[in-house]
């Protein structure tokens, strides 16, 4: 067992976990933040995407221990304190960017990172930059549309 100290969604967290605990399991099982999902075991589907120290990562392919001291944001922490949805959350709803909802949290976190690093991304760049996130429901069309809409509201 080891002690991991990090910050999740703005709150300091200390957890005693086995060394082989993945970040996603720390989030889901220890902190019960079950919005972050697991969709594969080869770090490709991206359902587990969270933001760590300002970049999106796959929380299923990182040890909690590696994240010692990190700032983590999950889907549960992206809305404003008063509950106002993040522009991407709003845009996914507006544009029907989700169906079954399973890939959605990872997709939203990935898109937040995308726009943070490339706020003027073209449609082609958005599609390219979402390559680490699988969606089986939407054909991606309305996800891309949602990112484009959020892009407008965020730069307005």
């Amino acid at each position, binding site marked *: 067992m080891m002690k991991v100290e990090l910050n999740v969604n703005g709150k300091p967290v200390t957890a005693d976990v086995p060394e082989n605990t993945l970040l996603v399991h720390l989030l889901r099982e220890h902190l019960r933040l079950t919005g972050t999902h697991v969709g594969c075991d080869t770090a490709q589907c991206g359902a587990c995407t969270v933001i760590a120290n300002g970049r999106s990562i796959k929380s299923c392919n990182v040890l909690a221990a590696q994240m010692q001291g990190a700032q983590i944001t999950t889907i549960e922490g992206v809305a404003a304190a008063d509950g106002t949805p993040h522009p991407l959350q709003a845009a996914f709803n507006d544009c029907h960017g989700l*169906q079954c909802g399973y890939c959605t949290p990872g997709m939203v976190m990935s898109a937040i990172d995308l726009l943070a690093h490339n706020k003027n991304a073209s449609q082609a760049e958005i599609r390219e930059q979402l390559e680490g996130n699988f969606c089986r429901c939407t054909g991606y069309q309305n996800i891309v549309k949602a990112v484009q809409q959020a892009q407008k509201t965020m730069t307005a």
Partner: protein
Amino acid sequence: MGVNDFAKLPHIGESLKRKEDGRFLTGAGQYTDDIRQADQKYAAFVRSPHAHAVIKHVDTSQAAAMPGVMRVFTGADMQGKMGGLPCGWLISNPDGSPMKEPPHPILAHTKVRHVGDQVALVVADTPEQAKNAAEAVQVDYDVLAPVIDMRRASQGPALHEEAPDNHCYTWTLGDKAAVDAAFATAAHVTQLDITNNRLIPNAIEPRAVNAAYHRASDEYVIHVANQNPHVERLLMTAFVLQLPEHKVRVIAPDVGGGFGSKIFLYAEDVALTWAARQLGCAIKWTAERSESFVSDAHGRDHITHAEMAMDKDGKFLAMRVHTHANMGAYLSTFSTCVPTILYGTLLAGQYATPQIYVEVDAWFTSTAPVDAYRGAGRPEATYVVERLVTRAAWEMGLAQDEIRKRNFVTQFPYQTPVALQYDTGDYHACMNQAQQLADVAGYQARKQTSQAKGLKRGIGYSSYIEACGLAPSNIAGALGARAGLFECGEVRVHPTGSVTVFTGSHSHGQGHETTFAQVVAARLGIDPSQVDVVHGDTGRVPFGMGTYGSRSLAVGGAAIMKALDKIEAKAKKIAAHLMEASDADIEFSGGQFKVKGTDKTIPFAQVALTAYVPHNYPLDTLEPGLNETAFYDPTNFTYPAGTYICEVEIDPATGVVRVDRFTAVDDFGVIINPMIVEGQVHGGVAQGMGQALMEHGVYDVESGQLLTGSYMDYAMPRAADFPEFTLGHVCTPCTHNPIGSKGCGEAGAIGSPPAVINAVLDALKELGVKDLDMPATPARVWHTIQTAKV
């Protein structure tokens, strides 16, 4: 209320934002793996590493002694205590004899028959402990040769004693003599050999089950990622575990996509339920993706020879089809009806082909079971018809659209030679709109632009037909169905006028919570925010057959409409009483009850309140309350149809196919929520394109190992693999359900593969390429070009 009046109501045809999105966008969704019971235990399965082997001995002693392990169960523990997994559809051979239906054990006992076949179940305190112990279970196998290639299955070793030549059934449909006679007189016959590639469904939420047994009440509560919880319960209790159905509650909470793969009753669900009772606890199992690959039911996997006989003008005279269908190692729940009832009956497509004959041979192989996957039989049929039609066009010197237009059915109802009767449609309208939206007029210019870049451009058409809402129950029963095919809906009006709807349909992405609320709100004249939809819980919903085959709105929605009819009729009586008028004089619209020819009205909410506070109420003739349930059994299938046009650009140097434009025009009848419907088409088209260009479940012929057992080798489509799709709609309302809707969930996956492949072949024609199987991967396209050159 007629379909036309219904379609004009407020909220019908409105792209209302989805009510369910809030929880999914904030991480508050509750999928099966998110649920943790008190005293939660975890399961891991020991799976066969071999495709075909005799189990000589299973030694669990070491595993059972490992930390945290509660029990290790093997097939021997279950022997005689339960049945095997049932098959829901009996197919008969032409001589009337039944298909071969070998047992499908919950844990393999004597033999394993595919890689991933489950051999033992470990229950432990943590998932890691369960996995560690599963690795420590020693299984002594006597390895046998696998049976992978269907075409040689009869020469392979028998997988099941019951089927010595690995043959499951032969099924035929149509008038063979008439077809043969028509071929004899044909001016031209087009022939085609095609393979419909095996697909692995890959809903992003892996299968999961959490089974709990409560000793105090002797009740089971099973949370499971499933599309039809009542069917799961019925099959499990009646056919496998012999449990009292009323003691078992099955909940399918938020489910992360299904695409057919979560229709079926799986061995893991049964094993956990039984083990929960043995151990008196709650046990959870969530598939790792590697397990999903080898243990989820796969889709498609047909090999077909098809022929079309035509007169000199390209009019179709007759069609003859022979198909080999892969069943996999065992018969999954609805496996047998997919390449038969859902396939052979669709071979008329949109065309007035007078005679059709189809023969299907189904085979057992040492691969994962094959069952319904988005479209189920209908994509396979459409692929045969639409590839054949386009090849026929080229052989006859006709344009792809021209041969279709010459043969479209134009008179409805239309009785096909393969059992179905199409109620309505307008195939020319779909074609015309698709051609406009696709800017077919500008195609030649685009082709020249591609040419100038050294790229090959092609255009492909596909005019598909689909049959949704499998029905009616009595006819399906006569054809071998072992279940009913109705749906149930309950409308519970609360005293304050808000409404809870209980539906037997299940939403795992389709947005029923929004669409069904729109239907109810439209009928009752209330706001959709006042309507909640409950689904996926046998403890709350009266009954249900679930969601598959694009049936939810056409069948489940129709059941709700029937319940609303009852609500309206009773509410009118209450209103009549309140306004001192006769029942017959009450009109209801816009949420107001009105006495005909007067200005006397009362609102719906007042009637609702009166129903539950029946002080001024005809108690002698009317029960209090406003809560109605209805069951709806359709009289026919519904027949969505459409035309898809695809344009591809191919780099001959690498074989890369880029889909440049894709246009889909569909006729789904009446549409409740266009935004949701378009989303369904996007997703379906994407899966169809995935099949056409990328996805392929491949087993090694020698070893029987699944070569595409992870996302490292099974190519899942990503965002950059698609262009923006262009959509259009035609509406000919379904004539036999009260909503007029036909179903939209599968169309995209049905119509798109042949459109893509026809476009690829069109592009490669000038290089001498005549044929190409799916998926048209870069390597395959490149090799095909090289072979054609020689």
